[in-house]
């Protein structure tokens, strides 16, 4: 558990944040220049805040009232910097193992080979950072932080320089870290799907202030707070994996209803979290027939929220849980939707992105 409360001001910019990061991944979410890196630097000990207190697992890292200040090297924090910061004079391998030299002998160690393989950097080990591509550098920076046996990980947009395929390979590793290591991770991102997939907790930053914080599911389903816009709104369902079918689909049990998704990489019986983007759900008054969509969930309209644009956000109570649906106001009228109306949510299997499905920790 990391607990942060900070005030710091710079000409034209004032930071005033307070949040807790429980085990799992806490995503710092906010626009460019909102102060994300500043917060992360303060946690790492690279910025000495004017006022504030930071504690990690009960250990005070900084407390300006008491004049307490732990230098960065004694914080045991693995920091993946926004700009890599590889050591130019060391080989990739030496870069990766740098933190290892200084980790207490007793600390649990990530395995070099495993991380090298995950990051796909085996062929680079003997090179120096000078001639690496942007994505290669960033992967090494991730590996270096992971290998330093940290008590907490700070990751400042670690995947921004990577292509989707590579991201898809690395995301599960962050998930595993989140679910298995129990060490808190503070993760800066502006990708809604990364947030949806990884975040246990979301802290929203705007102009240096925390405007909203809480469990990911809650924040992500609130269109008002999502700084990156309405398209990142979605509901999160907690389901249990029932079976894998021979045609490549997996069947999930969502409150007694079946949900079919392209093969989910978990074992049957496991709890799986599925994020359903509001803009990808279709509503129907009658039970639709002859559609290609495999998942049709019955429900009742809970609430209709019309925004400023042409859209409306419909919140639906279903046996599987609350589902958010974004439709046009015109459709809402045409369908005669009002609170309490019965209707069906139509969800395509393939519309659910692999990045929106994730194992639930501890299950």
């Amino acid at each position, binding site marked *: 558990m990391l607990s942060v409360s900070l005030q710091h001001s710079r000409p034209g910019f004032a930071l005033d944040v307070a949040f807790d990061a429980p085990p799992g991944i806490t995503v710092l979410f906010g626009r460019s220049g909102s102060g994300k890196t500043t917060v992360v630097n303060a946690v790492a000990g690279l910025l000495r805040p004017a006022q504030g207190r930071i504690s990690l697992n009960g250990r005070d890292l900084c407390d300006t009232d008491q004049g307490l200040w732990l230098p960065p090297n004694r914080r045991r*924090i693995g*920091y993946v910097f926004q700009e890599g910061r590889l*050591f130019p*004079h060391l080989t990739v391998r030496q870069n990766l193992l740098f933190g290892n030299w200084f980790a207490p002998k007793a600390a649990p160690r990530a395995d070099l080979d495993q991380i090298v393989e995950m990051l796909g950097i085996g062929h680079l080990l003997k*090179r120096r950072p000078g001639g690496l591509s942007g994505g290669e550098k960033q992967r090494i920076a991730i590996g270096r932080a992971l290998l330093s046996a940290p008590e907490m990980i700070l990751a400042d947009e670690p995947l921004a320089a990577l292509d989707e395929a590579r991201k898809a390979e690395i995301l599960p590793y962050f998930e595993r870290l989140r679910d298995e290591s129990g060490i808190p991770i503070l993760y800066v991102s502006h990708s809604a799907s990364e947030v949806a997939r990884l975040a246990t907790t979301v802290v929203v930053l705007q102009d240096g202030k925390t405007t909203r914080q809480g469990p990911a599911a809650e924040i992500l389903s609130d269109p008002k707070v999502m700084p990156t816009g309405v398209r990142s709104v979605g509901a999160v369902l907690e389901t249990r994996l029932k079976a894998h079918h021979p045609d490549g689909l997996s069947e999930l049990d969502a409150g007694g209803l079946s949900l079919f998704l392209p093969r989910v990489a978990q074992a049957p019986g496991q709890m799986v979290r599925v994020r359903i983007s509001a803009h990808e759900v279709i509503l129907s008054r009658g039970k639709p027939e002859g559609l290609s969509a495999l998942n049709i969930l019955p429900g009742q309209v809970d609430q209709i929220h019309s925004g400023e644009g042409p859209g409306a956000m419909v919140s639906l109570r279903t046996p599987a849980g609350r589902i958010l649906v974004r439709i046009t106001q015109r459709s809402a009228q045409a369908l005669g939707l009002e609170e309490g109306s019965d209707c069906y949510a139509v969800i395509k299997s393939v519309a659910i992105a692999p990045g929106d499905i994730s194992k639930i920790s501890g299950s």
Partner: protein
Amino acid sequence: MEWLGAEEWQAVALSLRVSFWATLVAMPFAVLTAFALARWEFAGKQLFNGLVHLPLILPPVVTGYLLLLTFGTQGPVGGLLQELGIVLAFRWTGAALAAAIMGFPLMVRAIRLSIEAVDPKLEQAAATLGASRPWVFATVTLPLILPGVIAGSILGFAKAMGEFGATITFVSNIPGQTQTLPSAVYAFLQTPGGEAAAARLVMISIAIAMGALLLSEFLARRAARRIGDG
């Protein structure tokens, strides 16, 4: 060889020894001083900075005279050292001290420039990975300033090879003991017709320094290649 007498060869050997040790022993102090000047804030920093530059400003003879007053057997520091069995005045060690002190500002400047060019962000990164300050210095800063350390060494060494005024004032000119190449050259220049002999010694001096220069360029290039797009 025929064309140089035994005493001249002794002078060559002695100059090499003096320059080598002067550079080697001064280097850690130069690195420390450069680091302090580049990175620390402390009271009297500018005074200290001035002190470091003093041997550059003062006429060498004055420096030598001050050394004699301080480190001579009658001087405050020299007397102390003598009780510890360390004698500098009139010894080759004294010549090394004089050479080191004369070269010190050159070394410090070169190293300091390199330190100032090191990106503190890399040092911060090392700190987050658990390296304490001395370790950050040893594993990140030092390798990155290697070109500066090498440049400082060659400046110090070259200066030591050429140092005359402070050396002869502090340790005199005892053949085989404290007669360095420049002292020998000076002696030859004092007499009409001594030019040829002086020229021979100067040539040797140049050859040695050139060798050291080439070596330093080679080392610096290797260090830079390691840091650059290796």
